């Protein structure tokens, strides 16, 4: 089943059409990348897909369900995880706690009756039960926590010795690259059906970028479906099954990386009007 299907997505900000009729699909196990000049609407497209923003029109289908206008927390629980362009970690939580937060949708003992969370008044039964469980801390909750902590350790190990030795440090003490890694670990923890990454290597040096590329290739080999926004063309070319090029909110080219790379419209969009985006 198609993981993600987006049709005719539109969103404008005060008259500016940030995303203007974008359609694409992501199939299971695929890595689809969105590239485009600065301000072309890539992040906005991801925000629309992940529920952070609501589309003005258009439709988003996730694993066969129409999820247009769903709130981000509901989408996350349904298996769509994401990271953010500027990096959003929980600064005063430890690295391990950050990743543990990513496992929230998988908690059952600690969040009883969580399927009632979308029912208006009944949700309070679930919230109060969660409070009671938090106060009592029964064995089932402790077992669940131990299990999730083991999962966190596995996630941290994915990044070699970058995160594991720092598991108990507050995230705000980390280097920029390690914060990005923490964020990726948080997004991956719950085993999402679709991983959405917004410029995961922004602000990283070439060595660090190469490291992230290896990790993403490993993920891809393991069958993880990924929707990626990235400026670093080499990384995009090596990783992607298909590439989508946005300019001024519209898709100007789409297809396999090599084909897109030689498309004259893409070259114009990148070179003709603006310099290719080079990020620090």
């Amino acid at each position, binding site marked *: 089943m198609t993981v993600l299907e987006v049709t005719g997505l539109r969103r404008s*900000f*005060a008259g500016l059409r940030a995303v203007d009729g974008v359609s694409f699909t992501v199939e299971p196990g695929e890595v689809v990348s969105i590239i485009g000049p600065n301000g072309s609407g890539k992040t906005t497209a991801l*925000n629309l897909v*992940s529920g*952070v*923003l609501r589309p003005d029109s258009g439709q988003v289908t996730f694993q066969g369900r129409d999820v247009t206008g769903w*709130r*981000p*927390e*509901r989408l*996350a*629980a349904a298996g769509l*995880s*994401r990271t*953010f362009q500027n990096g*959003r*970690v*929980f*600064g*005063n*939580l430890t690295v391990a*706690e950050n990743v*543990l*937060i*990513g496992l*929230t*949708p998988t*908690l059952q003992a*600690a*969040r009883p009756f969580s399927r009632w*969370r979308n029912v208006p008044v009944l*949700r309070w039964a679930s*919230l109060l039960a*969660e*409070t009671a*469980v*938090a*106060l009592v*801390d029964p064995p089932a*909750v402790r077992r669940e*926590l131990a299990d999730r902590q083991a999962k966190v350790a596995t996630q941290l190990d994915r990044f070699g010795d970058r995160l594991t030795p720092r598991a108990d440090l*507050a995230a*705000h*003490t980390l280097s920029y690259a390690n914060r990005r890694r923490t964020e990726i670990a*948080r997004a991956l923890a*719950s085993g999402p059906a679709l991983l959405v990454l917004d410029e995961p290597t922004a602000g990283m040096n070439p060595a660090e970028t190469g490291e992230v590329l290896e990790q993403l290739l490993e993920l891809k080999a393991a069958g993880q479906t990924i929707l990626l926004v990235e400026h670093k063309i080499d990384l995009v070319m090596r990783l992607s099954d298909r590439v989508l090029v946005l300019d001024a909110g519209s898709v100007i080219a789409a297809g396999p990386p090599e084909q897109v790379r030689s498309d004259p419209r893409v070259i114009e969009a990148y070179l003709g009007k603006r310099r290719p985006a080079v990020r620090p």
Partner: protein
Amino acid sequence: MLDTALAGLVNGSSYALLALGLSLIFGVANVINFAHASVFAVGAMSGWWFSVDLDWPLWAVLLGVTAVTGLLGLVINVIAVTPLAKAPPIAALLSTFAVSVVVDNGAQLVFGPETRRFPALLATDNLGLGGLRFGTLDVTILVVAIGLMLVLGWFLRASRYGRAIRAVAQDRDAAAQMGIPLARVQNLAFVIASVLGGVAGVLGGMYLNNISPTVGSTVGMSAFAAATLGGLGSLPGAVAGGLLLGVVEAFGVSWWGGNARTLITFAVLLIVLWVRPSGLFGKRAPLAAEPMTGTFFGAARTVRLRPWQVAVAAVAAYVVPAVALDDYTVQIGVQVVVYAILALSLTLVSGQAGQISLGQAAPLAIGAYTSALLTTATGLDFWLSLPISGVVAAVLSVVLVSPSWRLRGHYVSIATLATGLLVAAAAVNFDWLTNGPSGVSAIPPPTLFGASVSAPLAVYFLDLTILLVVLLLVVRLRRSTLGRIWSAVREDEVAARSSGIAVADYKSLAFGIGGFVAGIGGALFAQQYGYIDPSVFGISVSLLALTIVVLGGLNSPLGAVVGAIVLVGLPEALRMLQETRMLTYGLLLLAVVLFRPQGLMGKVAR
């Protein structure tokens, strides 16, 4: 009809001038200047001094007030706003709030707390038009107010600095890149806003006919409501909101009487926040950039006591008062304990979940009234009334504040402030339920094993035991999965939501549990005094609770207790005057925010 509308417009023009300043500052500095209300009061007081003591004519009074309040605005910006530009938004919110307390109570010490007659300087009833009677005063107020608005509009459009202000309001970073001197522009915005506020103080003082140092807080709150109604940051919105609110209040007062004014103001404010938080003219930012409290605790870890230390402290808390302290000191201890319970409710709401509440007196009042009314009117046993008080306070907290969960940061704080004031206003106005301003008296003391708990030591033991239970509850919640989820909500709402956390639910839950705890505190409060009335639950109680937790360490349960001892116990033991006490709270809050944001009981990591 028409004269009510005219009265509303005249009064509303004061609101509009104040709201203009609030919106101007919000636009330029992205700060809600809680000290703006005090500028109004200072304008009124200094205007009184110039005109009555010094006998100046009106034009000179206005010039003098312009100088005084312009300077005050500059000082507010330099002391309380600029140094915190890089700190999270809550810092400037707390510091301007602190400045307002300092200025109000400082003015009270200088001018004395009494209400003074403000001479009208102009005739109030000498003109007529059709059937409508009015005075030179009304005309002057409207002309000066509208004139100032036009001058401001012209200034912002046509002058170099005016355009700079608009550029900064539109996009601070872009303006800085274009070489606009941000610091100077922000100073200028504060000066202009404060001059408008000061002139509003003189006009408002003449119109109201009498003034007191607390006049600012009443009018100031209306101005907040007006600015929010118009849309924070929108200048035409501020004018429209001010005039509209003035007219609505005037009709409300003519129908339901003067006490209804505050009730109307805060009801309007809350409804705007629920229905259309961006106001009539405001634009709503689709995506929040940064969390409200976030790294305010930056690098702060709370001090942790070992179990045996806690045990020793708890035993000492029981034993020392029993063997070593006299009844008066024990009574102070009782107050400390009740405030510690109230502060702990804020530790959950503000420290753990990151929602700064400026109205925690609301659940305290609701709990106190619930318990008082149940035990006096229905004769219910105190022990049954206790949980009921907590539940009623929790439910009302959630119902009143939760519509603002869609909002973030500043707006949540405004909503809590409005809730606190609304509850106090409701206690005054709903006399069929609350017995109005005269309050509820002869609240019976609780009984335990057949004995009445009324001796100071007995009350102290009872309250202390409940405090320890609450402390345990708060500590356990913080260490649980729920506590971690609340931390995530506090740190970054957008990231929390994208990790599957229904942020609104957890905010509601925090307010619900916080309300429950505060409600229990309220019930204890009512029983220990045996008498309550609406004035007991004013904004000063909310302020004290917030100061306690900020001083102790916003994120430290132990800090709430230590803060209560320092801020409630010490002044009581030193028998400080009310104004001196408030002034001290304000100065302390300001100092903590500026110099030790992690509080007494937070320590810096690494």
